[in-house]
């Protein structure tokens, strides 16, 4: 069904393209054909799900379908490199992420793009809060005890993470640098295996995105000390924020945003930004994002300019933390 529509779309756009030879495509009637949205992570992950929920609504607003292309590899930088090199006609967009557009800068010295120089920020979508998690029989009862414990036992504790460049790795490094400890980091291949090791009690603690952790916390197979956002999360009302628990310096969120290749016309950016804001205000979209435990940005943070500032600040935040790690 979908395919017939896209077939028809392809035919139509082929004809439209023939017409376009005579009249160069202008930003006024954008978009005239299917838009490709590159998502730098596997389908089904938090970034993918958020992108899909929001772009489905954007596509409605724009009256054109948006095809999501998941390109995985090298912590999302493979996909982002491809997006940076794509035509800046507004028909190739990319979901940028805390990893691809900030943490990647210190982590990959040979990065083939620069988040600020090679992209036009479009709109911030939603973020997933980071939690401080531990195995269920880890001695400390709350964050204060946790801090004291890991400092006292710095030689003994193990911190799991989902692989170099993953959100859990970056945020754990941030936590460790704030606490000024250097625990042994045990790398896993993705969030699933890392969570498995934490549930099995093979490692002591980890930092991870809220989505996959909530059911485990509710079932008591792991415990959460704090959520690294300014406000408590509705899906875990009993978990204090880092500020409440006494570690206000630790603030981290796996934010997701739309970017376009550098040089995309401002009119197109404005169109897309307006559509994204409309999506974030939609009742149904909001409900689904909140169900995921996501945080939806406040109105002031939804402009392209605000996103540019965010990228700048995030790079500044992660660079000193992650630089020595490589």
């Amino acid at each position, binding site marked *: 069904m979908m395919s017939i529509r896209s077939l028809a779309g392809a035919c139509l756009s082929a004809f439209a393209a023939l017409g376009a030879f005579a009249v160069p495509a202008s930003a006024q009637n954008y978009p005239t054909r299917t838009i490709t949205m590159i998502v730098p992570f596997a389908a089904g992950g938090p970034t993918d799900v958020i992108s899909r929920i929001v772009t489905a609504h954007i596509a409605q607003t724009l009256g054109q379908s948006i095809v999501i292309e998941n390109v995985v*590899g090298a912590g999302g930088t493979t996909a982002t490199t491809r997006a940076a090199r794509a035509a800046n006609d507004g028909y190739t967009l990319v979901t940028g992420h805390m990893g691809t557009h900030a943490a990647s800068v210190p982590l990959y010295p040979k990065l083939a793009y620069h988040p600020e120089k090679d992209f036009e920020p479009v709109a911030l979508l939603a973020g997933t809060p980071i939690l401080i998690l531990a195995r269920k029989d880890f001695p400390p009862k709350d964050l204060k005890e946790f801090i004291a414990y890991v400092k006292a036992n710095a030689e003994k504790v193990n911190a799991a993470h989902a692989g170099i460049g993953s959100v859990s790795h970056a945020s754990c490094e941030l936590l460790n640098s704030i606490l000024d400890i250097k625990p042994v980091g045990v790398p896993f291949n993705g969030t699933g295996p890392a969570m498995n090791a934490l549930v099995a009690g093979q490692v002591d603690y980890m930092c991870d995105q809220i989505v996959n952790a909530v059911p485990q916390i*509710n079932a008591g197979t792991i415990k959460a000390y704090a959520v690294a956002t300014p406000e408590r999360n509705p899906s875990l009302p009993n978990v204090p924020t880092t500020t409440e628990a006494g570690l206000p310096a630790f603030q981290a969120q796996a934010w997701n945003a739309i970017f376009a290749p550098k040089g995309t016309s401002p009119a197109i950016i404005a169109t897309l930004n307006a559509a994204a804001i409309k999506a974030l205000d939609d009742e149904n979209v909001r409900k689904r994002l909140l169900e995921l435990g996501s945080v939806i940005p406040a109105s002031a943070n939804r402009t392209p300019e605000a996103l540019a500032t965010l990228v700048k600040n995030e790079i500044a935040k992660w660079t000193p933390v992650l630089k020595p790690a490589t």
Partner: protein
Amino acid sequence: MDLFANLAHGFVVAFSPINLLMCLIGALVGTLVGVLPGIGTIATVAMLLPITFGLPPVGALIMLAGIYYGAQYGGSTTSILVNIPGEATSVVTALDGHQMAKQGRAGPALAIAAIGSFFAGCVATVLIAVLGAPLTKLALAFGPAEYFSLMVLGLIFAVVLAKGSVLKAVAMIVFGLLLSMVGSDIETGASRMAFNIPELADGLGFATVAMGVFGFAEIIRNLDHGAEMDRNLVQQKITGLMPTRKDLADSTPAILRGTVLGSILGILPGGGAVIASFAAYTLEKKLAKDPKRFGRGAIEGVAAPESANNAAAQTSFIPLLTLGIPPNAVMALMVGAMTIHGIVPGPQVMQKQPDLVWGMIASMWIGNLMLIIINLPLVGIWVRLLRVPYRLMFPSIVVFCAIGIYSVNNAPVDVVLAGAFGLIGYWLIKHDFEPAPLLLGMVLGPLMEENLRRALLISRGDWSVFVSRPLSAVLLAIAAGLLVLAVLPTLRAKRDEVFVESEG
């Protein structure tokens, strides 16, 4: 007992028309994906995920699950017909399956693969329903040390399955291990032997290397002068489509053993299914009265690994259904599918989503039934495909493989790499090196290295963890025993001074 009530509830859910339809679609797509070389389940499930947006969650997951185990049925088809394993789990099937096809027995090989898969699928489904929750403990009991020992055991299996020189088989395993090192280092993220090629940053894909050393190399070799005779012979020799009474009698114990091994190993997250198929093959070869038949068209060599991989495909759902933790990439995508529908699976998923869990379990049984109904008649069609003149067949396989490899990552470089591995594979065949141990080394290499390093990180460099942890010690002991069994006959044979010297 609750079990029957739950299962009855599950069947009510699974027998609803929409879910039956979803199950059928899943089984069909899975078969197709398995048959097409290169196209993997991961890529397909990822691509079909968005379509499940519009479906009810239970139906969507029933369909995705169907694709996953359906591919296990289909995966054996190309292994047997054209010697191209589509999935890591069907590499061993190619060893004897393709030999059977060359002897005109493609029909019985395909049929026994389907029958074995069906039996294993049924048993494993019951196992999930009855023992799912207690078996979860096994998944949690396996820490890095245990995994490392299991991988060592897996590598020993690869030695045993060698047809010719053990020394050359070991060399191929190590070559495979070395190839698996390409890509990012898990602990430091350092790029290893990737030569700044972005497509190599995450390592060489299994599909890329498998298509190369099996698929393309086989084609190139078949184009050699003199190989034509062979091929024509195959086309004339095709005999019965279904297994004979003797075939069934030979296969039955193999299917039983394969099912048991597969069911147990499948529960282990990551690599369980691959090791299961290799282990089942090794076990049959070791138990056989005449191990020489293996690699030359022994039907047990098809029945055992195919049963094992399908049993493992079913039981690998256990960690997902009881813990909410995805044990492999396809399951991670299924978690994604659940997330899209607002269900985040966790340890309480069985209580909170009985429709989903029991519906899925029931649907697996129905799906396996559908798959055998789909696959047995297909045997005739597949075998007829062998009658297509090779001059038309081989360019088609080249194109299918190329598209398949491209589709995995949408990366043209992967296709070129597969071509290069085709030439390497051709060279290996010419020098009588076997590609199967190479592939096993490649699959197990990263798992072995990563778990070794994790284990040592956690133990702070204390190597004794591998023997002080009981499970790990048992696995290593089995590995050592098997190694002795594998090397002894070689030592007894004539050429042995050389082999002993080389060990030093």
